[in-house]
C-alpha cells in the first residue's frame, strides 16, 4: 500500500479519483432547510446515487420531492446536512474544492431573465470565464465556441432582452458552457418557454450530450422531455423512488400516478393498445416509433 501511494503521489487527487470513480457520487445525502421559527423542512432524506461521465439523466418528481435541492448539491450551491457528494472525486463540502467543483458542473435555472447580466449576448457569455481570470484571447475563443454550440453566434452583439425566451435560455446555457464544464445541470429550463423555445433548448441539450459527450442532468416536469434522456430518476419525498431507462420507468403507470406524475400520451396509447391485445414491442416512446410498429 505504501508503495502504491508513492507511485501515485505526484498524481493530483482529482486525477486519480477520476480514473476510479463515477463522475458524480452521492452517499446518504440529507438536506434540511432551517425555518425562522426554529423548525426545519427536510428536503432530502438519504439519497445514494452515481452518475457516470457522459450520461443524460432526467430528474422528475412532484413539487417538493427534492429535485431542485438535489440539483443544487451537484455543484456545491448547497452543503449536505448529512452525507457526502463527490464530483470527480472532489468532496463538495470541502471549501477548497468549491471552484474546482463549479468549474466541472455548470447550472442553468428556470427563468432566463434572472440569469442574464450583461448588455450584449457575448458579454453575458463571457461573464463566467472572466470570473475565472482566464486570459482575454482564450475567453474570446470560448465565447465563440459556446455560442456556436447553441447556434447563436450570429446574435453575439444583440442585447439579450431582445431575444425570445428560448434564445435567452440558450444564452444562459452558452454562459454555462463557456467555463468548459464536463457536466451541465438544468433546473426546469423549459417551463417558461413556448413550444418552439422548448424544442430549441431540448434539441441543444440532446446534441451537447450525444455530440460533445457532455454529462447532462435535466430537471423537468415534462415526461416528454424525460424520454430524450437515457436514464430517468423519479424523486419522491426526498428519496429516489425509481431509477432506470425511460422505457422501463414508463412501464409503471400506476406507480407513476401514485407519485403524482403522468406518462407521455404516446406511451399511454401504446399501453392501452397492448392491453387490448394489439401486439406491440416494448419501448415505443415516440409517435414515430409507435406509428412504425403499428404499420
Amino acid at each position, binding site marked *: 500500500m505504501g508503495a502504491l501511494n508513492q507511485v501515485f503521489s505526484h498524481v493530483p487527487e482529482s486525477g486519480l479519483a477520476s480514473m476510479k470513480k463515477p463522475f458524480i457520487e452521492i452517499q446518504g445525502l440529507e438536506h434540511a432547510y432551517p425555518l425562522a421559527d426554529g423548525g426545519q423542512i427536510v428536503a432530502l432524506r438519504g439519497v445514494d446515487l452515481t452518475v457516470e461521465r457522459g450520461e443524460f439523466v432526467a430528474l422528475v*418528481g*412532484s*413539487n*417538493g*420531492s427534492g429535485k431542485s435541492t438535489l440539483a443544487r448539491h451537484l455543484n456545491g450551491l448547497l452543503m449536505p446536512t448529512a452525507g457526502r457528494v463527490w464530483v470527480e472525486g472532489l468532496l463538495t463540502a470541502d471549501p477548497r474544492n468549491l471552484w474546482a467543483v463549479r468549474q466541472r458542473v455548470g447550472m442553468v435555472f*428556470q427563468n432566463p431573465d434572472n440569469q442574464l447580466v450583461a448588455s450584449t449576448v457575448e458579454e453575458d457569455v463571457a461573464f463566467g470565464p472572466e470570473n475565472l481570470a482566464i486570459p482575454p484571447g482564450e475567453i474570446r475563443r470560448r465565447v465563440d465556441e459556446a455560442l456556436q454550440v447553441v447556434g447563436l453566434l450570429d446574435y453575439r452583439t444583440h442585447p439579450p432582452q431582445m431575444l*425570445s*425566451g*428560448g434564445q435567452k435560455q440558450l444564452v444562459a446555457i452558452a454562459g454555462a458552457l463557456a467555463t468548459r464544464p464536463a457536466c451541465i445541470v438544468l433546473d*426546469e429550463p423549459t*417551463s*417558461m*418557454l*413556448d*413550444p*418552439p*423555445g422548448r424544442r430549441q433548448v431540448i434539441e441543444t441539450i440532446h446534441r451537447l450530450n450525444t455530440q460533445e459527450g457532455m454529462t447532462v442532468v435535466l430537471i423537468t*416536469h415534462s*415526461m*416528454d422531455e424525460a424520454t430524450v434522456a437515457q436514464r430517468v430518476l423519479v424523486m419522491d419525498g426526498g428519496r429516489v423512488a425509481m431509477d432506470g431507462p425511460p422505457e422501463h420507468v414508463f412501464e409503471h403507470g400506476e406507480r407513476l*400516478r401514485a407519485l*403524482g*406524475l*403522468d406518462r*407521455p*400520451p*404516446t406511451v*399511454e*396509447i401504446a399501453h*392501452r*393498445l397492448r*392491453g*387490448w*391485445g*394489439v401486439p406491440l414491442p416494448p419501448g415505443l416512446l415516440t*409517435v*414515430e416509433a*409507435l*406509428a412504425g410498429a*403499428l*404499420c
Partner: protein
Amino acid sequence: MLIQVENLVHTYAPGTPLAHTALQGIELKFDPGERVGILGPTGSGKSTLLQHLAGLLEPTGGRVWLDGVAAHERTPAARARKRQVGLAFQYPEDQVFEQTVFRDVAFGPRNLGLKDAEVAARVRWALEMVGLDPAAVEGRVPFTLSGGEMRRVALAGILSLHPEVLILDEPTAGLDPRGRRELLGRVLAWQQQTHMTLILVSHALDELPRLVERVVVLNKGQVIADGPVRQVLSDGALLRAAGLDVPQPVALLHALQKAGWAVRTDRLLPEEAAGEIARVWEQRSRGTRHRSVSKVPRGHREPEEDIP
C-alpha cells in the same frame, strides 16, 4: 358578461423606431359562461390581448366591449365591469406584493368593501380552492414560498374576487402533473357551478381538451383559427405553421392515416386515440390476417363532441 373585441389594434412605442404592432385588427366574441383556450407562440400577441380584455391597456385602434361598455374607459361603469374580469398573470411574482399570504389574497375582497368576516371567509375559500392549507400558509411571507406555491397564491388572489370572467395565463407552468390536474379540476368545477367565463392561455395540449370547448389561435397579432377544440387541435398543418406543437394523439393518427389507415384524426385524448386505433386495427386484421383484438370494449363509445 359578454366580451366583444372589435378590430382591436395595439402598437407599442408608436412613432418611434421601436414601434411594434402586437395586435393587428382582432375580432373576437366571448359569450357568458364560455370556456375558451388561447394558443400562440411567443410574440403572437396573447399577453397584449389578455391585458386588453382586462381593460389594462388603451387600444391603438378598435375597442374591447365588456357588456357594451368600452373596457379602457375611466368611467364608473367601465370600472365596475373591469372588476368582474380576473386576470392571473403568467409570472406570479408580478402580482404578489403583500407582507403575508393572507393580506395578499385579502387585498381584492377588501377593495370590494367587504366586511372583515366575509374577507376572511373568501381568503380561506380561495386558498383551499388552489390546494393550499389556509392555516399553514396565511401567515407566511409570500417571498418564502416555492414557485408553485406563489403561483397558487396569485391565483387565489384573483379567485377571491369571484370574477365573472377568469383569465389564466399559463396557470400550471411549473406545477407537477398531479398539481395541475387537481388545480384545473377545482377551477373547472367552480366554473360549472358559477357559469363564469373561463379564458385559458396554455401550451399544455394534453390538458386543454379537457378544459375548454373552443380554441383561438393567434399568430403575429392575428387570429388564424377560432373554432371547436376538436377541430382546431386536430389541424396539424395549421398548428405547425404557427410554430406550435401538435397533440401527440393527433400526430400519431395523422401518421397512420398517411400510411393508409382509415382513422379519424380528431381524437385528442390518449384514451380516445387508443380506442380509434384499436377499432381500425381490428378491422384491418380481420380483413387480412385472422387475428382479433380480445378486449377492445365492444361498441367502443364514440366520444361526444364536448369532451369533459
